[in-house]
């Protein structure tokens, strides 16, 4: 049988066991990154998802070129992930309860937030207000998308404004922090949720460990930015294993019903 190496404890895991365990290491409980489609599949009720905002797509409006053009990077990301952007948004049900759900994908240009992520979150927020259903966003992002310059920074303000309207309308908003969530996403809609859930061993910070290391000229503590440290510091409400996440979300949604 094919084996997969846990990226944390380095032990071999049967690929079948790995997948059945939702890409969580059965030995050390390390939660490996999963894509937005897989996340959707394990989170919402079968056949309940209807995508919205799909036709909103990225353009290279700055003609950004570093060592590769932004257009090429977008094409590559679309091919490698099968997604149209770094977030999928839509309406779905969890244990029968309707919700507006957004799921980010770190595989799509590091889950970076550009104009499309911002716009899809705005559309998702509007949908949750229109239908008066709770909003849940799974976050995974390295931050703002540099290839869209300062316009990507503005998506922080844009998403915050959209989220504010959701809250003003008396709708609960829950964010789920998955590994990694940092930069512009963590300093905007991710941290403004009524309830913040983190997956085990997920990195959740504004400045990443590399940047911190440059500033303080030494290695940050090994648990820097990790869910467990964030829980201790009061930055998240709870840490929930991937296997339990659907049930916990359903319980929370029921409390607000």
């Amino acid at each position: 049988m094919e084996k997969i190496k846990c990226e944390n404890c380095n032990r071999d895991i049967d690929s079948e066991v790995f997948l059945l365990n939702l890409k969580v290491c059965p030995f050390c409980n390390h939660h490996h990154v999963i894509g937005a489609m897989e996340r959707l599949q394990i989170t919402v009720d079968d056949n309940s998802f209807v995508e919205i905002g799909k036709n909103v797509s990225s353009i290279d409006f700055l003609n950004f070129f570093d060592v590769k053009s932004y257009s090429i990077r977008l094409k590559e990301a679309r091919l490698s992930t099968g997604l149209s952007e770094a977030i999928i948004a839509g309406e779905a049900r969890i244990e029968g309860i309707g919700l507006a759900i957004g799921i980010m994908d770190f595989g799509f240009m590091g889950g970076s937030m550009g104009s499309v992520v911002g716009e899809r979150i705005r559309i998702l927020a509007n949908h949750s207000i229109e239908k008066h259903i709770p909003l849940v966003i799974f976050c995974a992002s390295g931050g703002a998308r540099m290839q869209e310059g300062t316009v990507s920074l503005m998506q922080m303000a844009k998403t915050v404004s959209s989220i504010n309207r959701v809250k003003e309308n008396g709708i609960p908003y829950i964010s789920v922090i998955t590994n990694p969530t940092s930069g512009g996403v963590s300093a905007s809609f991710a941290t403004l949720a009524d309830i913040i859930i983190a997956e085990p061993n997920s990195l959740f910070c504004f400045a990443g460990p590399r940047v911190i290391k440059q500033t303080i000229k030494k290695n940050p503590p090994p648990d820097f930015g990790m869910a467990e440290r964030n829980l201790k510091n009061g930055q998240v409400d709870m840490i929930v294993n991937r296997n339990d996440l659907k049930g916990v979300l359903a319980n929370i949604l029921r409390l607000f019903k």
Partner: protein
Amino acid sequence: MDFKRMAEIPKNYLKEILGALSKLEKLKKIPFFSGIHFRDAERDLNQKIKSYKKIERDAGRAWKVVELSRNEGRPQCYDYINGIFDNFISLSGDRLGGEDKSIIAGLGKVNGKTVAVIGHNKGRDIQERVEYNFGMGTPEGYRKSQRVMRLADRFGFPIITFIDTPGAYPDVEAEDKGQAGAIAKSISLMFEVNIPLISILIGEGGSGGALALAVGNEVAMLANSTYSVISSEGCAAILWKSPTGIKLAAKSLRLTSKDLIRLKVIDRIIPEPFGGAQNAPERMVKIVKKYIVNTLDKYSRFSKEKIKSDRAEKFESMGFFNS
């Protein structure tokens, strides 16, 4: 949108192209070859040199703005406060256990009207810079700013913010205290207040730490200030993976006032004295004062509801995409 393509600049392009040109010269000397092909090839190569040179020039120009925006002689937040507001009182502390000197917050009067003033404090000499942490805010600073914004909102005082920061302070303590949440909350609060909020980028507008004070009804940039999602140095390190990309990054990130007004990220460019604000700091302060007085006057005619909804609509419509 009509942003010119930034073509790739190969390393050592001059050497390569000059090599190709001299090869052409040699080929030309061989009898029986028609000259037409040579001329085309020659033109292409020369064109290439020209376009690479142009990109380098543009990148150099953008970099010059970055350097100007960081110039130590530029007026800083305190200079504007001293030159513009009467009876200014500085307020300290976030009431949650901390005080951050890198962000100034207080109340003062301009044109007879009380306003709240909040801004990044960079400091001038090295001693000051260390004391003020180079204008890099911590959660305590953003929370102090939130406290003063709420106070202003309660009494209907407009808020003026001065932005001048390399970015939020990246260290372990700031992160442990919730840097991300503090910035997010500041942004959120600026959408909640019912009073006019005017944001002026006076120097460096570094990423989330800048945005945390910059959700203005009107966002203005001094002509030689910058506003960027990441520093040119940081961007070059990530995308170019080498420091040679710093100037190219400065150009590519479109962080100048001229680019950002076209992208509708900012609403106004405030002109600077010839050569930059550092050449005539007092005049710069006067120009900014005039801008503040005029803009406050404009917003005094708007209703609370309109002020709040206009601000949200402006930011929620930002971005470029196909749909």
